[in-house]
C-alpha cells in the first residue's frame, strides 16, 4: 500500500463529506478526523482490502456518532433552513435546493442515499459500511428517496420567499 493510494482517496472523501455534512468546514474536519481515526486503527485494516470502503466506514462511524451526540440538527425547521440560503438566485439554485433537502433527511437515511446514489456502492457494500442488514439498506434507501422527492417537490417556491426570509435574519 502506498501513499498515492491514500492521497487519491482525498478528493472523493472531501466531496462525499461535503454533501453528507452540507458544510465545507465540517466536511474537511470530518475527513481529517477520519484520517486520524484511520491512523489509530491502522492495525485493523487488512492490506489488499478495499481502502475506500474502509475509510467510508470510519467516516460514517464518526459522522453518525457526532450526529447522535449533537442536538437534533437534522430535525431543524424548514423556515430556519431557508434562512441559510443566500438571497441571490442563480443557476445553482437547484443544487442548493437539493443540498438543503438532503440535510433535512435523517442522517442514517442520507448516508444510505449518498453511498448508493452518489458513490455507486452496492447494497452489500453499503450494508457493510454502515454495519446494518442489506434489508435495512433497501428500506432506508426507499424511504430516503420518497422523502427527498417530497421535499424537493414541496420547495419550488423558496426563491419567491427570499424577501420575507430576510426579515427573519433581523
Amino acid at each position, binding site marked *: *500500500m*502506498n*501513499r*498515492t*493510494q*491514500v*492521497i487519491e*482517496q*482525498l*478528493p*472523493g472523501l*472531501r*466531496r462525499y463529506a*461535503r*454533501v453528507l455534512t452540507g458544510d465545507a468546514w465540517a466536511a*474537511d474536519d470530518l*475527513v*481529517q478526523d477520519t*484520517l*486520524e481515526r*484511520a*491512523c489509530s486503527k*491502522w*492495525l485493523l*485494516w*487488512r*492490506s489488499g482490502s478495499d481502502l475506500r470502503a474502509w475509510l467510508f466506514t470510519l467516516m460514517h462511524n464518526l459522522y453518525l456518532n457526532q450526529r447522535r451526540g449533537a442536538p437534533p440538527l437534522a430535525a431543524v425547521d424548514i423556515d430556519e433552513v431557508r434562512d441559510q440560503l443566500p438571497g441571490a438566485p442563480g443557476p445553482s439554485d*437547484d*443544487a442548493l435546493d*437539493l*443540498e438543503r433537502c438532503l440535510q433535512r433527511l435523517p442522517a442514517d437515511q442520507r448516508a444510505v*442515499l*449518498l453511498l448508493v*446514489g*452518489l458513490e455507486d456502492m452496492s447494497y452489500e457494500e453499503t450494508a457493510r459500511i454502515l454495519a446494518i442488514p442489506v434489508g435495512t439498506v433497501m428500506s432506508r434507501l426507499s424511504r430516503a*428517496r420518497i422523502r*427527498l*422527492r417530497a421535499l424537493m417537490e414541496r420547495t419550488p417556491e423558496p426563491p419567491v420567499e427570499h424577501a420575507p426570509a430576510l426579515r427573519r435574519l433581523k
Partner: protein
Amino acid sequence: MMTPPHDTSTDDAATWQAQRDQLKALHQDLLHAPVPEALQTAALRLADRQAQQAQWWRWGGMAASVLFAFVLGWAGRAQWHHGSAETAAQAPTQRFAQQAALAHAVYQPEVRHPVEVGAAQQEHLVQWLSKRLGRPLRLPVLAPQGYELVGGRLLPGDTGARAQFMYQDGAGQRITLYLGALPSAASETAFQFTGDGPVPGFYWTDAGFGYALSGQLTRAQLLELATAVYRQLQP
C-alpha cells in the same frame, strides 16, 4: 392480469436516475480542487503506517512474537517521530524528501496547471525562484537524458520557500526536482534513495540546500538523473 399502460416501475427507475444524476453533480468541483495540506499530511501519516503494516504482512512467515515486537516498535517510532521534537540529525532531510515526494504526487498528474511558470519564460522562472529561495539557482539541463523542462513553481516548506522544477520526456513521463534551504541539515550528504513515498526518488544536501529528484522510474534511472543534476549544480 391487467396492468396499467403507465408502468410505474420504469417511471420510478427514471426518477431514481434523475435523483442520482443530481446528487452526482453536487460539489463536482471538489474532485478537482487542491486538497488542504492538513489533510494531505494526515493521509501521508496513514499511508506510512499502512505501508509498514503491509510489509509485515508480506513477511508473514516470521514468528508472531517477533512480528508483534516489530510492529510495536514501528508504531512507537512513528508516534515519537511526529509527536516530539525531531532530534535525529537527518530528520529534517527526511522530511524534506517526504515533502518533495508529496509535491511531486500533487503536481505531476496536473494537466492544465502543472507549473506556475512555463519553460517558455525560463529566464523569468529562474530569476523569480532565485529571489524567493535567496540563492542564485541554475536549471539543470536534462535533455541528454531525454527530459525537457516543463517549468517550475514556488512551494512552502518547513524552512522557507521551496522550488519545484518539472521535466517531461517524450512519453509524457514527468520528473520533478525539488530544492530549498535546509540550514539544519548536514552541509553535504551522499545521495539517499527513498522508495516509501508516493513516488521514489533520490535526495541529498549540499551547502545548506536540500535537493530531491522524484519520478516514477527505476532506481537506476533516477540515480542517473540525480547524478546529472548534481554535476550541473556544482559551482
